[in-house]
């Protein structure tokens, strides 16, 4: 990519006073105008990373650059970034107008320009007419939008968002996800978004960095992250995955034969060199597996097993299939036909054959 880089982290490490390594040698390049997500479980270092970009924390080693300039010890109020906080952090003693105007007031923007820009920002987040309200008179979603307007009104180079939708209920969260994405496209500002919700990250992001235990495990587009997870952790954290543990038996060009712990063999494509006899995990997403009764025509699957559980969730049906004494897999089968007659639903105990497209399986080393 030749796009200019807005934020760059070079080998950034943060060790807290108590010795906890919150961020461990993280390097990232975030491009201008990008919707970039830091995704990971709580305690993975994503918020600390964001706080170092904002200037609330300073790296123990390494460097944060914004627009190419090393930030060093630059305090937050001298950085061209703004933050939307997890709990919004609206000033309770100020009206909506005063909250949004705060940043401009600090920059000594002329009074009538403040009024104009605040009005514009409130319009952008669809809160016109709420100027004289106080934060506690607003709903959670409205407070969220004030926080957005308060940050955006400053026209920052980069907007940092720390789990901004965490406090909203599911339905509102879904709405706000789309709204945020649209907003980001409208204003064209780089968004760096921290979340632990993989679905949220997939929905909104141009690129995602998956973090765990202070390290960045993988950076890529939502499709790359989902379809080509680089590690077992990523595959497990993003969506649902069946893991089949085994050993590399034979390598033939770009295909490896894996001897599963249950004694069966699987042929899977590989995209990097593997040593024979090495321990690997084969990952297959539940929705990529096809399930058919063994006696059905064309049922020449790679695995066979017996249906142990059937979970109907409306759009889909989950089958838990036991393939050997130690292993069960989950298969997600789309209910694309009316199954009121339950004819198509496989009953518990059915002997089934599982198959998938060759490139649906992925070999993971760790």
């Amino acid at each position, binding site marked *: 990519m030749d796009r200019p880089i807005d934020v760059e982290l070079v080998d950034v490490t943060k060790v807290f006073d108590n010795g906890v390594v919150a961020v461990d040698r993280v390097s990232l390049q975030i491009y201008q105008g990008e919707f970039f997500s830091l995704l990971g479980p709580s305690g993975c270092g994503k918020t600390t990373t964001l706080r170092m970009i904002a200037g609330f924390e300073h790296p123990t080693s390494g460097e944060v650059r914004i627009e190419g300039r090393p930030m060093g010890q630059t305090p*937050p*109020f001298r950085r061209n970034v703004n933050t939307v906080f997890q709990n919004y952090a609206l*000033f309770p003693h100020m009206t909506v107008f005063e909250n949004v105007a705060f940043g401009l007031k600090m920059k000594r923007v002329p009074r009538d320009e403040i009024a104009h820009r605040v009005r514009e920002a409130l319009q952008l987040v669809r809160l016109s007419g709420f100027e004289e309200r106080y934060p506690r008179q607003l709903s959670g979603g409205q407070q969220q939008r004030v926080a957005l307007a*308060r940050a955006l009104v400053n026209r920052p180079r980069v907007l940092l968002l720390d789990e901004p939708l965490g406090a909203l209920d599911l339905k509102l969260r879904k709405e706000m996800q789309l709204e945020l994405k649209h907003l980001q496209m409208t204003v064209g500002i780089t968004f760096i978004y921290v979340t632990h919700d993989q679905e949220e990250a997939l929905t909104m992001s141009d690129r995602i960095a998956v973090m765990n235990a202070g390290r960045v495990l993988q950076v890529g587009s939502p499709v790359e992250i989902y379809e080509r997870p680089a590690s077992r952790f990523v595959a497990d954290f993003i969506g649902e995955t069946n893991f089949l543990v085994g050993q590399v038996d034979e390598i033939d060009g770009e295909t490896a034969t894996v001897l599963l712990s249950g004694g069966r063999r699987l042929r899977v494509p590989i995209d990097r060199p593997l040593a024979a006899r090495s321990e690997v995990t084969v990952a297959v997403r539940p929705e990529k597996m096809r399930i058919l009764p063994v006696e059905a025509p064309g049922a020449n699957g790679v695995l066979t097993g017996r249906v142990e559980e059937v979970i109907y969730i409306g759009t889909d049906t989950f089958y838990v299939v036991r393939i050997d004494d130690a292993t069960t897999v989950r298969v997600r089968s789309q209910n694309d036909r009316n199954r009121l007659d339950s004819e198509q639903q496989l009953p518990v105990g059915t002997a089934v054959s599982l198959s998938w497209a060759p490139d649906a399986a992925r070999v993971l080393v760790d």
Partner: protein
Amino acid sequence: MAIVEQVRPSERGAGWLQRLSDAVRQRESLRALLLAGPGGLWLLVFFLLPITIVFAYSFARRGPYGAVDWSFTLENYVRFFDWLYIRVFLVSVWLALLTTVICLVIGYPFAFVIARSPRRWRNALLVLVLVPFWTNFLVRTYAIMLLLRADGLINNALQWLGIIERPLTMLFTPFAVVLGLVYGYLPFMILPIYASIEKFDFTLVEAAQDLGANTWHVFWNVLLPLTLPGVLAGSILVFIPSVGAFVTPDLLGGGKVVMIANLINQQFLTVRHWPFGSAISFVLMAIVLAATMLYFRLGETRRI
């Protein structure tokens, strides 16, 4: 018949108790009366009644030999507007204001440091603030006298260091009085401010910094307005006892700095003009009431 008669008394007893407890349970007002009754009675007997008597005195005349002559007059209140007494009033308010401001300037940063210190240290620091209360106030005031005397510790030290040649006059000056008042009432400023800073959400500081506010702007625009209730409470708690202080100006002012309470004391015990003393007491109460109302008004306009 005999059985019925035997049962009746206990039944009646139970019924009486039952009726009372039912009444208490059902009637909010009765319950409130029972809860507030003891305290109310106490205030009635030991506060409202005496203050009514004092109020009545303030409209009476001084009889011969300091007795109270029960004839209605306003002359006590008129007399207060003599420059002699107005001056005492102005000095009292001025010294009390000075004390309040100094307590605020010293107390706010102190409370801030306590509220921001690690949780396990906070209680220890708060106890340190309260330690002076373990010693009698009079003893502590005498101790200050010893420090400030011409041949006291401070003068001796300054002379020994060669900073001054002759002892400074510190005792029996307004300076000594304010020093004593600040010393005595500083904890009343620190504690409420501490409480409001402790409740303050410090992510708001980060939010303000993020929006371009430097340290001063953060303090002035965010921290101070949101801890104002504590500042106001502390100011009231310091101002009221300061303006009516008696022991401190008596001992540290040594009769040279006269505050309202000293004037009242003089009128009652030395001059034996109880009606005038009563009138001054009521003027003092009016000042305190006005100041309190002003503070609350200030707090209301700034609060949401």
